[in-house]
């Protein structure tokens, strides 16, 4: 081989080695590829790369039978031969490199030819190329790892920030809802706030709050929703409400795929596009009364544990609102007249006492219905009750929101006109009430009418609530005596007459 041919061959082989090693992205493959290419370039049967006394790659020995100690002896320059199974003793040559990761490239070849100076030079060149390439690969890998770590960190930070933002939004929503509950906002308004907030946070197309129908408990009614109509939807069997029914059955959050457990009505409403839904049970005073549902048309939608937690939090708020609303309802029922919804005697007297005790004026109107008993006896209790309800409504219709109407039992009613110190206002209202209550009532095809006798008294003339009640009562009796369907104002004279009568 001429010098120039040998040189160009060396250059070629170094270039080839470089091309091979650079084509691998990981060190192990690159080292193995380099060992093979070095053996190929020198037409050698054996090639090995060692880091210190560890063999990083070797070709030419049977698998599992790489003689590390013998290779190291060649690397250390202690011998220039190797015994290779299947071959006669081979000439061996090694080139080493130092630096932070010192290593050796060892070549062994069968046959009589020893390694020429050019070949030794080539092996040294290959070792150098390998060292440089490995350093580069390690640097790249370190950089890549750093980049991956920082990217990973960035992703984690973003997730954390997003999670914190969501938690914050959840807290804001929940505190709004709870303020609504404590303010005694109307229940429907609170429930709608919950469904809107759930959609804001979970982002699903459908949010629905289902509660058991009080009359048919095996059915549920949609109380509030986003993405579904509430008004035209009849109460549905629980078994057809999808995840809601299941969440109520299992008292836990349930995720349902597609139209699992869903009846035809919801399928029709959602146009067959429903992909996944999730529901959490809602409770009232500890009993399961319904479920809060979220559902999506997105085939990729997946509910994470975090989503489940969010839904559970909203469901708990619904439970809180329902429990609170119904407790309030029960409390109201205890102080209000069951039939008419007006304050009962106890509440009325309490409010009246408070008004007087605070030194605020009030006009009291005591109302008794005339001819109520014969009508009640003739037409029955139901008709009588109906008259009482209509009368209560007629009384309410003539009052300001600050005023208070009460039913004292039977056909007796009372009205407190707050902050009224003049008879004029009391008289005006009494006159209207006489007229309004006396209008005919249509009862199952029969027209009946009852009149009202009203007594008017002012708190300025009384020392306490009981006095005021008595004054109004006296005035009312005077009105009855004077011909019914009219009002009378309490005066000291009336008091005198009353005392004389009794």
């Amino acid at each position, binding site marked *: 081989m001429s010098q120039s041919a040998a040189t160009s061959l060396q250059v070629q082989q170094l270039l080839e080695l470089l*091309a091979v090693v650079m084509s691998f992205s990981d060190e192990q493959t690159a080292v193995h590829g380099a060992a093979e290419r070095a053996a190929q370039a020198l*037409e050698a049967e054996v090639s090995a790369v060692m880091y210190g006394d560890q063999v990083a790659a070797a*070709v030419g020995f049977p698998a599992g039978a790489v003689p590390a100690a013998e290779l190291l002896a060649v690397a250390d320059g202690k011998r220039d031969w190797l015994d290779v199974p299947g071959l006669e003793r081979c000439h061996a040559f090694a080139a080493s490199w130092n630096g932070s990761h010192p290593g050796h490239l060892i070549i062994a070849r*069968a046959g009589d030819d020893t390694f020429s100076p050019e070949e030794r030079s080539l092996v040294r060149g290959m070792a150098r190329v390998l060292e440089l390439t490995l350093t580069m690969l390690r640097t790249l890998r370190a950089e890549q790892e750093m980049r991956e770590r920082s990217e990973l960190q960035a992703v984690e930070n973003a997730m954390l920030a997003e999670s914190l933002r969501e938690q914050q939004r959840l807290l804001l929503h929940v505190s709004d809802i709870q303020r609504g509950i404590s303010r005694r906002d109307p229940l429907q308004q609170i429930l709608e706030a919950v469904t809107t907030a759930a959609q804001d946070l979970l982002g699903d197309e459908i949010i629905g709050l289902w509660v058991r129908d009080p009359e048919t408990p095996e059915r549920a009614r949609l109380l509030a929703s986003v993405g579904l109509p509430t008004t035209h939807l009849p109460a549905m069997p629980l078994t057809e409400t999808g995840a809601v029914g299941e969440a109520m059955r299992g008292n836990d959050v349930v995720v349902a795929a597609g139209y699992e457990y869903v009846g035809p009505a919801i399928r029709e409403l959602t146009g067959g596009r429903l992909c996944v839904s999730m529901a959490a049970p809602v409770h009232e005073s500890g009993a399961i009364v319904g479920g809060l549902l979220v559902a999506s048309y997105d085939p990729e939608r997946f509910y994470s544990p975090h989503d489940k937690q969010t839904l559970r939090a909203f469901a708990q708020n619904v439970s809180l609102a329902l429990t609170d609303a119904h407790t309030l309802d029960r409390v109201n029922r205890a102080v209000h007249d069951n039939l008419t919804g007006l304050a009962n005697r106890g509440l009325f007297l309490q409010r009246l006492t408070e008004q007087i005790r605070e030194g605020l004026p009030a006009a009291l109107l005591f109302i008794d219905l005339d001819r109520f008993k014969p009508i009640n006896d003739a037409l029955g209790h139901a008709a009588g009750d109906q008259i009482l309800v209509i009368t209560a409504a007629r009384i309410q219709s003539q009052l300001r929101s600050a005023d208070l109407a009460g039913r004292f039992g039977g056909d007796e009613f009372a009205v407190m006109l707050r902050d009224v110190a003049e008879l004029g206002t009391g008289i005006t209202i009494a006159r209207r009430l006489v007229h309004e209550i006396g209008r005919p009532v249509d009862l199952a095809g029969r027209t009946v009418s009852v009149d009202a006798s009203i007594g008017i008294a002012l708190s300025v003339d009384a020392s306490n609530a009981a006095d005021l009640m008595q004054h109004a009562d006296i005035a009312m009796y005077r009105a009855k005596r004077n011909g019914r369907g009219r009002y009378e104002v309490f005066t000291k004279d009336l008091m005198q007459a009353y005392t004389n009568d009794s």
Partner: protein
Amino acid sequence: MTIADAAGRRWMGVGSSPHGDTRTAAVEAARSAVVGTDAKLLMVFCAITHDPAAALEGVREVAAGAPVVGCTTHGEIGKGGPNDGTILVAALGGPGITVSVAVAEHVAGRQREAGAEVAQCAEAVADLPYRVLVLLTDGFLRDQESILRGTYGVLGATVPLFGGASADGWRMTGSFLFGDDRVLTDAVVAVTIASEAPLSIGVRHGYHTVGEAMIVTSSSGGRIHSLDDRPALDAYLDRLGAPGEAYTDLEAFRDFALAHPLGVKRRSGVEARNLSTEIDLEGRTLGGGSAIDHGALTWPMTGGEDTILDATDAACRDAIAGLGGRSPIGLLTFSCAAIRATLGDDGIRREGQRLETWADGVPFAGFYTYGEIARTRGIDGFHNQTLAVLAVA
């Protein structure tokens, strides 16, 4: 015909049949091959025109339990000249020989792994002093060199490698292998032959370089994009003064490339790469089997009958010389399908005569392959445009 060593410890026989009926041809060929007792291995070289399943069945009928391996061909090489449409069977037997067979399937995409798998069979043979691993690979697999690397990774230099890639008579629709009593594709069949006497390999090509070396200035994905900074295909054709149609016509390029491999510089000479199977007239790139890297020195090559037949002689001489003075009991002769294209019908008859001369009365059998396998030095062993000879003593 069958030849045994003087002590009767090892024998090799070869039989051939031109019969049109596959099963009959297979039975006839196998019967002619198995003359000795204690048959250890039957190798079948079957024309693509035959039904491979029927061929396997016919040989198995005669094999009496001995393993059957083999493949389809681009012509069967045996005594009396190369043939087409025949079934050729070589049998090895006797107490001085043991064999072990392994098969790897679904090889495409995991060539190296498959090569390592079949190498395991080398350990299953008796501990006799001489061994060779004969590999038959599906000729339609790419990157055959990786199969050999996988095998070498397990065996190291302990076992020489020999073999060939199956062919399909230039139909280019698919070839078949026989192994594990089945007809296989996308597979590698390996046979370890261990013997009391030497086994020796010769491999040569008959092509010489034309002009100065050209440097691969761009390559990727196993293809050469440019030589000396020019589109590789044009640089190659220009150097050889190729006919005009070879620049534009696929068939014309293939015919031209078959006779003009690309030489790649190696320490002990120039390795020939066949450019005729992965033609890219549109992209003007060259593909030569396994990758030729950026920076490699290459030459267009040419050869004629004289040089190719010289290589035939040299390969036979090398193989027989490797027996250390012993006489062969037989030869396996795997020649490249591209050589057949270069030599033509008359040329391959003369190639056959040379082989017969070197066999000197002992049986020989082989086929025209889509790639020859012969690792005798270094770590590489997949060749193009060569004759590979295994001499069995």
